[in-house]
C-alpha cells in the first residue's frame, strides 16, 4: 500500500489541481498520459485534438485526421512541454495514426524531415521518458517503464463489462492550454458492437468493433483521447466524430484497446519486414470488404470530382451552401465560390445536400454540369466540365 500511495502522491505532484472523488485515479492517470495536439485546421477539422502516449520514448497514438497533415504538428504534454509530432504510420482501415514526439527546436530548425520513418529507425529516443500506457495490456507505466501501480500488474488486457465506469480524457473544445489538465467525461460502458450495423454512417471507413459508451465523447478535439477504466488502465481511444446522416446524431464510442494494440503490432511488423495483411483477429475479411467498399464510395464522392465541399452544419435539412472550392478544380474554373447556394443542377431543383449528391451520382463521367447558384442577391448560371484524373 505504501508503494501505491507514493505513486499516487507523485502523480499529484505532477498536477496539483487534480485529486479527490471515486474517479481520481482514472483522471490523474489518464491526464498524465495524453497530449494536446495542434495541427492543420481545415473545414470541419478544427486544428486541435488529443493523443495517447504509448511508450516512454514518446510514441503517440491518435486518430487519422487532417490534423496530422500539418507541416508541423504541435504536441503539448500534461506538464506543458511543447514537442513536434511526426507521423510514423497511418492506418486508413482502422482510422489510426502513430506519431513520434521530437524536440520542438529540432523540428523548427528543419533538422528532421516531416512525416518520415527515419525517426523510428534512428534508434535511441531523443525525448522523454514520459509516463505512458502499455499499448498491449493498457497498464499505466511510469517514465521508467515500470507499472504505475505495482500491486495491480495485469497479465492480460482489462476486459470491460457492460455497466463498468469509464473515463475519457481529451482536450475537447480546446478548454485546456499548456499544463492545464485536459477535460474528462465519465460514463458507463454499454456494449461492444459493430458501428456499421447500428448506424448508417458515411465518410467513416472503419468497420471493426467499437465500445459504445454513454459519456459524450463526440466533441471537437476529443478524438484521440484516452478511455480508461476506474483503475486507470487504457481500454480504448475516443474515435473520430461519427454523425448519422439520417438523424444528425453523434455517436459516442471508443476504438477498443485490442484494435489499438493490433495497429501498433502491425506497425512494428511493417517496420521489420514487408507490409503484411492486417491482423485478422481484429478486422476480418468482411470488414476489409466493407472498408474497400467504403473507400470506393469515397473515390466516387462527387464533391471531389468537381472540387467542392458543401456545408455540413444544420439540422434535418442541410442547405447546399458551398463550403470550400478546391483550387484549380472544375468548380473553381467555372467560377463557383465559397458560400454560393446551389439552386439547381442540370435543370433539377436542389433542395438540400442530399439532393445534390443524388443528382451528381446520376451524371456520366464526362457530362457537363449546369449549375444555378445564388450568390448574395444574384442568381448565376455556371457550367462545370468535370475531369477525372
Amino acid at each position, binding site marked *: 500500500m505504501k508503494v501505491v500511495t507514493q505513486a499516487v502522491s507523485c502523480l499529484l505532484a505532477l498536477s496539483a*489541481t*487534480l*485529486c*479527490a*472523488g*471515486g*474517479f*481520481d485515479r482514472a*483522471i490523474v492517470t489518464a491526464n498524465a498520459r495524453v497530449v494536446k495536439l495542434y495541427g492543420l485546421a481545415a473545414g*470541419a477539422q478544427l486544428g486541435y485534438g488529443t493523443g495517447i502516449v504509448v511508450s516512454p520514448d514518446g510514441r503517440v497514438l491518435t486518430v487519422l485526421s487532417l490534423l496530422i497533415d500539418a507541416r508541423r504538428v504541435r504536441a503539448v504534454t500534461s506538464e*506543458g512541454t511543447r514537442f513536434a509530432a511526426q507521423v510514423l504510420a497511418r492506418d486508413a482501415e482502422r482510422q489510426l495514426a502513430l506519431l513520434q514526439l521530437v524536440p520542438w527546436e529540432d523540428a523548427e530548425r528543419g533538422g528532421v524531415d516531416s512525416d518520415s520513418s527515419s525517426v523510428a529507425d534512428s534508434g535511441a529516443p531523443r525525448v522523454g521518458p514520459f509516463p505512458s500506457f502499455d499499448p498491449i495490456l493498457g497498464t499505466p507505466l511510469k517514465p521508467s517503464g515500470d507499472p504505475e501501480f505495482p500491486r*495491480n500488474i*495485469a497479465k*492480460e488486457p*482489462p*476486459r470491460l*463489462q457492460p*455497466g*463498468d*465506469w469509464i473515463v475519457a480524457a481529451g482536450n*475537447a*473544445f480546446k*478548454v*485546456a*492550454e*499548456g*499544463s*492545464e*489538465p485536459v*477535460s*474528462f*467525461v*465519465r460514463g458507463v460502458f454499454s456494449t461492444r458492437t459493430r458501428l456499421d450495423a447500428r448506424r448508417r454512417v458515411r465518410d467513416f471507413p472503419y468497420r471493426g468493433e467499437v465500445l459504445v459508451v454513454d*459519456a*459524450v465523447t*463526440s*466533441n*471537437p478535439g476529443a478524438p484521440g483521447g484516452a478511455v480508461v*477504466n*476506474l*483503475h486507470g*488502465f487504457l481500454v480504448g481511444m475516443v474515435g473520430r466524430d461519427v454523425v448519422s446522416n439520417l438523424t*444528425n*446524431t*453523434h455517436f459516442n464510442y471508443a476504438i477498443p484497446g485490442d484494435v489499438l494494440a493490433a495497429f501498433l503490432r502491425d506497425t512494428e511488423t511493417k517496420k521489420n519486414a514487408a507490409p503484411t495483411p492486417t491482423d485478422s483477429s481484429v478486422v476480418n475479411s468482411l470488414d476489409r470488404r466493407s472498408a474497400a467498399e467504403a473507400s470506393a464510395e469515397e473515390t466516387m464522392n462527387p464533391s471531389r470530382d468537381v472540387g467542392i465541399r458543401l456545408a*455540413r*452544419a444544420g*439540422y434535418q435539412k442541410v442547405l447546399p451552401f458551398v463550403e470550400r472550392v478546391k483550387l484549380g478544380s472544375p468548380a473553381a474554373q467555372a467560377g463557383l465560390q465559397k458560400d454560393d447556394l446551389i439552386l439547381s443542377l442540370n435543370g433539377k431543383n436542389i433542395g438540400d445536400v442530399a439532393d445534390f449528391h443524388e443528382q451528381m451520382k446520376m451524371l456520366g463521367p464526362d457530362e457537363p454540369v449546369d449549375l444555378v447558384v445564388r450568390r448574395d442577391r444574384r442568381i448565376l448560371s455556371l457550367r462545370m466540365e468535370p475531369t477525372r484524373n
Partner: protein
Amino acid sequence: MTLLAGSTLLTLGARAEISDADRALVFEREQKRIELAARLAPAVVCVYDENRRGGGSGVLIDSQGHGLTNYHVLAGMMKKRQGFGGLSDGKLYDLDVLGIDPTGDVAMFRLSGREDFPFVSLGDSDRVKIGDAVLALGNPFVLSEDHAPTVTTGIVTGVHRYQWGTGANLIYSDCIQFDASINPGSSGGPLFDAQGEVVGINGRISINTRGRFNVGFGYAITMNQIRRFMPAMRAGLLARHGTLQATVEDIEGSGVVFTELLRNAAGYDAGLRVGDHLLELDRTKIASRNHFASLIGTYPENWPVHLRIERGGFAHEFHARLEPVAPKLAHPFTPDLDVNRRQVESVLRGYRQAVLGNSSAPPRHRAWNTVREFGSHDAAVSRQEKYEGRIAGDFASLRQIHADGSKGRVIEFSDRAAVSRSSTAPDEAPAELPHDQKQVLAAQYLAFQKLLNWSSLDELPETSHVGGDAWVPITWSPGATTTRQSEKERVLDVVRWSLGDQWDVRLGFDAETSFLACITILDLPTRAEVQVDFADWSDVGGIKAPKYVTVRGAGAPFRDELTDWELSP
C-alpha cells in the same frame, strides 16, 4: 471513494460477485443523494420575466429572499427590473432585480411575498477538485410546470478554466467545468458540492455542431468570485470587474512577462514596468498568460491585489488597486436608492446585532484602559504608552497615563463640534493636535457609540452602500507580517458616511460576521487619511468589543490593546 466506485464492481478481468455490503452501500449513497436533492430543491428558483415567460434558474441564499442568478437571465428584464420567481412550493413570487455583474454574468434578485424563504448555504469553491461529485439544479428547457427544479448529477471535470466572453461581458474566469447536464433554462441555477453547499452558479456550456444543448461540458462561476461582488449586487449597484491595465505574454523560456502597461493606470502606478516577469498574483504562482487572465478576472474594481515580480534578477512586491472594466449595457444602469438604503440599514443592523446580541439597550457609558504600542523599523515595538478611554453620550475622550500613574494630556472628540483638545495639566491651555489623533477617537466613537445607538436611518448622517472590498489589515510594525493573502480573504461591506462637512468616512463591515473590520476617515481639507482596524471581537460584559484597535495615520502605525472594559447603562 465518494462515488459508487465499489472496488468489487471493477476488478480486473473476471467480475466478482456483488456483495451485500456493496449493495447496501449503493443504496445508502442513493438514499443520501435523494435526501440531499430534496433538502436543496426548495431554495432553487425558476426565473421568469414580467410576462411570466422566458426561463432561467436561480438560488436563494438567505431567508429574506435574496437570490443569485446569471446576468444573462435577467438581462431582458432590465427595463422594469421586475419578474417572477417560482419555488418548489408551487407558488410564484414577485422578483425584483437588485445589482448586476454583467462581466461575470452574475446578478442578484430578491423575492417577496413570504416571511421566511428557504435558502442554502454558500461553500468554498477553492476546495473544489477535479473528480468531486456535484449536483446541478435548475429548470432546463422550462420543463417544470410546478416550479420543482430538475436535478442532474456529475463530477467536476476541470477547475481554473477560462472561457472568453463577448467583449467585456459574460467572461467566465477561473470557472468550474463539470459534466452534469445543464441546458438552456438551467442558467443561473446552483452547482452544489456533495455537502449541499453552493460552489458555483451554472451558466454556460460548450456546444457542438448539433445545437444548443449539453455535450458534457458545463461551466459554473465560482462562489468565491461571486462573494467578492455580492456586497455591491446586494446594494443594488452595478458591480464592475477590475483590471491592472496590463498585458502579459508567455515568452518561451522566460515565463509570463508584462508586455504592455497603460501609463498612469493601476499596474503602472503600482510600480510595474514592461519586461517584468510575473511570478505571483495574490500568492498564487502564475503559470501562463491564460492563468493570469483567468485569475485577474475574478476581482472587482478597486480590489487590492498583491503582485510578485522579478526584475533584473531581483524579486519585487507591489500592491495595486484594480481599475474598473466597463461592461456593455443595453440600458444605462442606475442604482436603485431604496435598495441601497435598505442594504445600508441591513448592514448596520447586522453590526448592532453582532455587538449587542440580545441586550436590549446599548450601554450609555463605556470606559477602558489602553496600552498603545508603536511600531518601528528595527523592532516590533518601539515604545509603549498608556491611556484611559471613555465614551458617554456624544462625547469621547482619551487621557494619557504616565508611568508613575500621574495623568497627562487629554484628547477629546464631540459629535457636534468635532473638536479636540489637549492639555498636560487641567489649567493649561489646550494645544492643537495632529488630525489623526482626532480621527482615531472619532472612529472609536462611531464604532462604540454612534453605530449602536440608533433606531432609524434618519437619525444617522447621509449614508450609502458603495460595494465590497477586501480587508487589508494594517501592518502596524515591520515585525508583523499580517497581510490579506496570508489568511482567508475577508470580504467587506463598505458603507460611506459623510460626517460633518469635512470628513469622508468609510465603514468596512465583515460580510460574513457583520462585525466592523475597519473605518477609514479622510479629512477632506488636508487629504489626511486615517485607517482604524478593529480586531478580535470578544465578549465584554454581555456584549462584544474589539481587543485590538490598529491605526495607520500620518505618524508611525500603532496598536491599542483595549482592556478593563467598564460598561454602564
